[in-house]
């Protein structure tokens, strides 16, 4: 891929990729690493993309795969549970954004599907393709994620349902 084109795509998609990775991994530094890994793959990719949507879907799929690999690697190295809440950017941000720590208490698969559906506006069918799972599995994850999130928010005294 040409450098100029890559620059355009970084400008356009870096935040989206970062947020997807962050929603999955829960760690700011790791999410940045994953984002750059994804762009390295894109830079070296010789695939002929059919459209802008095709590129976006490809980037999301690669990001999700990188996240899965990263979690597996982390397990092998650290042998410790991933405490999402510990990886949230800074204490100041937590105070400012009371919702993020609550969302990050969900499991990686649940919070990433919530993010992709509600923030990036992907339909169940599109998510099925991106995540490589059946539509019913996407629906189940969304349902479970909403249910868990509702329970978590109910525990939060400051949050009005």
């Amino acid at each position, binding site marked *: 891929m040409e450098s100029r084109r890559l620059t355009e795509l970084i400008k356009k998609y870096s935040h989206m990729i970062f*947020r997807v990775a962050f929603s999955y991994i829960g760690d700011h530094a790791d999410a940045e690493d994953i984002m750059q890994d994804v762009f390295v793959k894109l*830079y070296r990719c010789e695939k002929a993309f059919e459209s802008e949507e095709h590129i976006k879907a490809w980037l999301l799929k690669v990001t999700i795969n990188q996240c899965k690999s990263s979690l597996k690697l982390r*397990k092998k190295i650290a042998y410790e549970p991933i405490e999402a809440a510990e990886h949230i950017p800074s204490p100041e941000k937590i105070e400012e954004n009371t919702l*993020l720590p609550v969302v990050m208490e969900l499991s990686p698969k649940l919070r990433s599907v919530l993010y992709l559906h*509600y923030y990036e506006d992907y339909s169940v069918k599109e998510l099925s393709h991106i995540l490589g799972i059946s539509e019913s599995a996407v629906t189940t994850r969304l349902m479970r994620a909403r249910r868990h999130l509702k329970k978590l928010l109910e525990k939060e005294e400051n949050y009005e349902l």
Partner: protein
Amino acid sequence: MNYRKLIQEAFFEVSPSISDENIMKNVIERSKNTAKQVKHSNRRYIPMIAAAAVVSITTVGVGAACNWDISQLFNTHFQNKADDYILPTNIESQADIVDLTDMGNDILQSFEFEYGRVDFTGYISDSSNIMLMYTLSIDEAALGENSQADVYWQLSDGSKTHAEKSSSGHGCRSTDNSFTYCTTYSYGANTLTNGDIFRIEFTELCSFGKDTYTSLPLSEPIVLQFTLENVNNAYKEINCSHQYTDDGYSRSLDKVIITPLSVDWYSLRGKAAQSDTQLWESIEFTLSDGTVIKNYDITGTNSGEYDFFSAKLDKPIDPYEVISVTICGIEISTK
């Protein structure tokens, strides 16, 4: 609750700390470095023989749900089943029904013993069952005269050192001398909870050939123990009283319990009756979307005056999605 607004609010300020220019710079740099990397060949496991000793190599447990992809493992197992299965089952390929994200737990305990090595990889559990997965690597040289071609080796807990009512397993041959197993231990109705200790002592290595069975006692038992976490406590209990005759007795089907991993039922034995049927071997159930599940593997055992049967499912289900179950020809609505 407006989830869209909520998620947008939560992630609105999440952004990378690195500028687009620096991303570009790093990508170009990393791309050059990556191109120079030499691909390493896969490491090969060479079995160590620890005569008359069982050595615990790693005993590190992971405390929380860590996305052990049991769905994928299930798929691998049952896709292989048609070509190379160890125990006969009625299981066929079936689409994923439930998301197992929150059920998978790593164990990461490995043991070397006189005939090879076993790696306990993970488990899932619900309130009635524990499904344990492990890979067994056999050192043919250590088997000596017991070495046999085309047999399937597996670990057995012999005299049943734990309290399960029954167990059944499925496995596949990974390589010539390596076997991967899913074994489900069934404890009966709604008995397991988070914090329970699962402990099992494997005391022998067994082989199943077409016409042969070999049992090799281990010099020391392999003791696997862990604390249950992420037990999926979804279950549906149906109390009923259906009279029928099967397998030499008049019976009463009194209770059915559906969990993600099994459909269990209790059959109260009455008087001996003329019957040569084996109706208990046939069960099917219907989900709310019309799907009819017929894939299972049944085990049965005596439990006092009751016979306890457990149909292990090839893919976990959502018990609340089951609208009816047919057991021994009796259709029971679960609504």
